[in-house]
């Protein structure tokens, strides 16, 4: 692993997107089929429910070197498994605080509610997150230069 030697202007954030099977991932699918453009910075991993996402998964991603992690799932009250997204909100709250404490900036973690039919919202949310991460700069744990 080389030290990241990336200039602010050239910096492209690498983002992990954890999308739930029923809403988030389905929205991403729709966006793809509708040919809606969204930044290639995001790497999507499918989970069955955002409720499956725990601290280890997220911290592991940051340790790996992701500049940002975004959880995309069902609206509150519409979780396919009833309350999984509520748990996800709580987990994200806690981890944000920890990230702040260890200097990893809580803003690098986000959760968004996007239902399966909201493909444009998916694209919008990803675009906004990537812009914000560009401004924040690379994660202190980032070891690779990358062209995404």
């Amino acid at each position: 692993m080389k030290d990241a030697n990336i200039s602010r202007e050239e910096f492209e954030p690498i983002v992990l997107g954890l999308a739930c099977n029923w809403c988030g991932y389905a929205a991403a699918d729709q966006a793809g089929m509708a040919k809606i453009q969204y930044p290639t910075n995001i790497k999507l991993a499918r989970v069955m429910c955002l409720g499956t996402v725990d601290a280890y998964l997220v911290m592991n991603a940051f340790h790996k070197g992701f500049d940002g992690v975004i959880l995309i799932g069902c609206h509150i009250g519409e979780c396919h498994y009833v309350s999984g997204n509520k748990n996800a909100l709580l987990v994200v709250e806690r981890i944000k605080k920890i990230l702040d404490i260890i200097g990893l900036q809580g803003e690098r973690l986000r959760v968004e509610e996007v239902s399966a039919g909201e493909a444009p919202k998916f694209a919008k949310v990803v675009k906004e997150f990537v812009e914000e991460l560009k401004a924040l700069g690379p994660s202190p744990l980032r070891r690779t230069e990358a062209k995404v």
Partner: protein
Amino acid sequence: MEGSRVVVVGGGNAAIDTARTLVRLGCKVTMICLEAREAMPAIKEEILEAEAEGIEIRPSISPKRFLGDPGGRVKAVECIEVERIDQRPDGRLKPIFREGTEFNIDTDRIILAIGNRSDVTFLPSGLEADERGLIRVDRDTFRTSLPQVYAGGDLVNGPTSVVAAMNSGKLAARRIVCDLEKVTYPERFQDLVELSIRAEDAVQRNRGYFEPKPRARMPRLPLDDRKSFQEVELGLSEEEAIAEAKRCLNCGGCSDCRECEKVCEAKAIDYYQREEIIPVTVGAVVIATGFEEFDPVNLHYGYGRYPNVVTQFQAARMMDPLGPTQGRLLRPSDGQEAKRILMIQCVGSRAGEQNLQGGHPYCSRVCCMVALKHASLIKKYFAEDAQIYICNIDIRAFGKGYEEYYEKVKTMGVKFIKGLPGEILEEKETKDLIVHVEDMATSTLLEIPVDLVVLSTATEPTQSSDLLKKLGVARDESGFVKEFHPKIRPADTTVKNIFVCGAAQGPKDISDTIAQSGLAAMAAASYLGEGYVLLNPQIAEVNPDLCRACGRCEKECEFQAIRVDQELLSAAVEEVMCEGCGKCTVVCPTGAVSVKSFKEKQLLAAIDGLFEDLPERAEEEMAKTP
């Protein structure tokens, strides 16, 4: 007898009875007793009445000697003051006299009314007695120290009343029956045990409902008229008696007279029927618990304060020919026919996310059609010339033929006001209601005087949340049973073998309820009749070596799919119920639960791969492989 002086010795009811009888025979009576005034065993009221009738009562006095004349006739009683009464170790009482306080009371007669004692001389030996010389019995079973010998009444309790003795006898008789039949008291006399529990329960529950009223004051014969033996307590008048009877809390409910049993020709009454809890094992459950009416008492429409504000349900009851008003729409305040009626829609519904005034955010769906129906009925069958207003936000006539119905009602002359009233005032004398509402269509502020205001109240899910909790089905924010999918599977719940239909799932009218009930029945039947269930391959599994039975997974699961097995001391997955969401894996502190074919290491590997998924790296990797 007339004019003679009598001393009555005793402080109990017998002494009082004696004294009050003597007074009516023309004697001059003095009562003396050992006890201090507060300790006199006689009924307090009797003591007061006796004194009012002219009897001199001297407590804390003991007779010392009876003095007579040489002819053998009584002349006086030598008395002494009682300092106090001590209790001997064996229970008997010992009065302590004040030395030197002797005095005489002149009298012609002395009557002793100092109580009786049981004659125990005939009783067999071996019958254990207590310190007072009375038979010793077990308080509950009335058994004595001799087998098959029981005792009660004065022989056990000392001299008391006839009623107490009869009570004692009855209780002992029941115990004897239990001993002879070799059953326990609650088994044999379950209904009596239940009666006392029922009575106590009814008293507690109704405390707030009944207004506390004092006992009726018994009218008494005036003192001047008490020369004869006429009854002193005159009895209550009819009104007083009825009022006194109304104080009864009716805690027993049924008075066990069994008249209903005698009268029933179908022999349908079983007096000895008991509540039975019958366990039924089923493969599927259909929830059809319906709805309840929103209570508009906290809103500003005056329900509960103004008598002429009612709900649509109450109006419907009145319009029912078999109902409480025989089918007439009347004003509750004076029973007059209501000719000017104003209906208010969305009472408790559409209250926004903040649940304004305790209302609900949802639309209750049926109330617009109910209002139209009632307006049409009033115009057609009750009062053709009735003036009817319907205040609304909009009229929702969504079903087949509903819009046409709405148009028809408009042609009948029913006025639709687009706006909900801001204030309703009541006219003090007439109890008419003045409704203040802005008609948004014409931007005018109206003040409409009406006879009756009818509120179209929201429907709410039944408060059977205890039942729903036990079933473990999820509910939505408003408390209705949550359907698995609102469009595709509206009769399924989150639990695979529990189905839902009707207003329990959400407000709906009869046609929609019938349709959904058919669906629920069919879903339950096909679930049961299939003969097999398709399992999701991606379901949770537990490693029992890691599981420490903390129960967090069981608590977290929305589908009742994972439970701690107390015998195995490990969680176990109910495969048919598991939906594979993986929430249990996150809350498990030891990592004992995982989802088949969706393990954490698979996800981590995928994330790793995503990070490595960079064009140059891919080229590097590809270059390596031959």
